[in-house]
């Protein structure tokens, strides 16, 4: 048996990689070295990431207008490197529609990003209905940090087949044996995906997940620069799955999420 080689295993050039779950900018919780757009693109280039879907940390719990403006700046300076994820403040329901219209009509955003935990705005609030209706009307995808209820996600994904949904984080640290209802929903419903953005990452979690739900509903995400981009990409590169399956996880599935091939 030939000896395995790190340089070959970790070669990202053979893949088109879209990071479907990124942030950008500084954060109060802990120190982030670099993390602004120029540094972030440098890291993307180093690791071999073609595009990153970004939602600034600022927009996860505070000033979404300033955050969404920064997304537009990033996309203007680095065309083709960023996918804009519009952040919405659920604690200001009167501003939701106006900000969504601004993001999708003027700022070229492509995804709605929700973070109910940071905003301390649980998903059972009726104001979220405004967001679902807007997304449904325009067939937009939504990435949520946590839908907080598998039943709710299942219901939404059934009512709104034109919206694509990501349940973030659960899949990245799956232990390989416990049941996760989000996996069942992702497997059953064509418009639901899970991303493998997580901290920490359990042993061989990606290949266990592929065995559990197949490769076609798993989306690569690193959470960078909240976390380290290269740390995130390694779990896919090392996984004992085919290169074709890796390519699905690295970009193909994300493009389906983005453009709605499954519908």
């Amino acid at each position: 048996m030939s000896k395995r080689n790190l340089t070959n295993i970790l070669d990202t050039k053979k893949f088109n990689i879209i990071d479907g779950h990124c942030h950008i900018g500084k954060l109060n919780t802990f120190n982030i070295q670099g993390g602004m757009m120029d540094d972030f693109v440098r890291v993307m280039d180093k690791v071999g990431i073609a595009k990153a879907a970004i939602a600034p940390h600022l927009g996860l719990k505070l000033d979404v207008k300033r955050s969404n403006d920064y997304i537009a700046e990033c996309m203007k300076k680095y065309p083709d490197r960023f996918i804009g994820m519009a952040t919405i403040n659920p604690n200001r329901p009167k501003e939701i529609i106006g900000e969504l219209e601004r993001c999708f009509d003027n700022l070229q955003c492509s995804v709605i990003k929700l973070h109910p935990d940071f905003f301390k705005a649980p998903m059972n609030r009726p104001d979220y209905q405004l967001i679902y209706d807007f997304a449904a009307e325009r067939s937009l995808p939504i990435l949520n940090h946590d839908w907080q209820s598998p039943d709710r996600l299942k219901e939404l994904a059934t009512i709104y087949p034109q919206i694509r949904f990501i349940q973030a984080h659960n899949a990245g640290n799956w232990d390989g044996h416990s049941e996760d209802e989000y996996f069942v929903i992702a497997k059953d419903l064509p418009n639901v995906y899970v991303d493998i953005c997580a901290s920490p990452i359990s042993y061989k979690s990606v290949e266990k997940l592929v065995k559990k739900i197949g490769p076609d509903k798993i989306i690569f995400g690193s959470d960078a620069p909240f976390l380290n981009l290269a740390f995130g990409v390694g779990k896919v590169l090392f996984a004992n799955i085919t290169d074709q399956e890796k390519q699905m996880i690295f970009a193909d599935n994300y493009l389906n999420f983005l453009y709605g091939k499954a519908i």
Partner: protein
Amino acid sequence: MTENLKLFDSNCMIGVGPEFIGSSFDTKNSLQNSMNYYCVEKSITYHALAKYHNPLEGNSLLLDMLGADTKILPQWVVLPNHTGEFISAKILVKELSVNAIASVRLCPKNYGFELRQWLLDELLSEMEQIRIPVFLDLDLLHWSDSVPWDEIRTLCLAYPNLPFVLCRIGCGSNRNLFPLLEQCNNLFFEISYFDANEGIEACTKRFGAERMLFGSASPTYDPACPISMLFYAEITQQQKQLIAGENIQRLIEGIEYV
């Protein structure tokens, strides 16, 4: 282009672990297979029972499982012996020497004792005599878990000739870790969970590459992540190799068994 790294895993476990996250290496063979899969050449390994059940039993099992091996080096989990449930520090030093133990591990959270000088002094004074690396396993499961920074600082300053290795320090640590590295030259940390954005680069720039050790925390966590992070770090190949294996090798070679 980054060349291949010679990886020496400073944080590896054998035996049946809790498995609420990850897996177990039930046999030496399964550990070796994993090392081969992840291109790891050497490892320091402790036994799951030594960490989660009883150090004496687990440490003994470890030696039985590993045998004489130049690629997988044994690490013992140790306890202060005020209760008489372990062995005295002086006897421990002899046992460590006889069995060529490559480092020791303190697991204060799992064994319910404080990381305080007044209860660890006898043990750590003896460990300092032989300069054996002491891994501090605080059972950190998430980057937001609290770390007893002040206690760690006190111990580092009290035993300046004793290398301490912090395990599973996460991305949220920089604001506490950096000043501690600044003040304590005998403090090191393994990078299995150091998934901070450009964290390796920042540490290398400020403190040199000598303070970080490659570790995988396998088979609980995925070695792929720290390997990939180190591989793509924007530091020199020489600095990467220090972190990949030379730093832990140097610490082991610094042990002064009589």
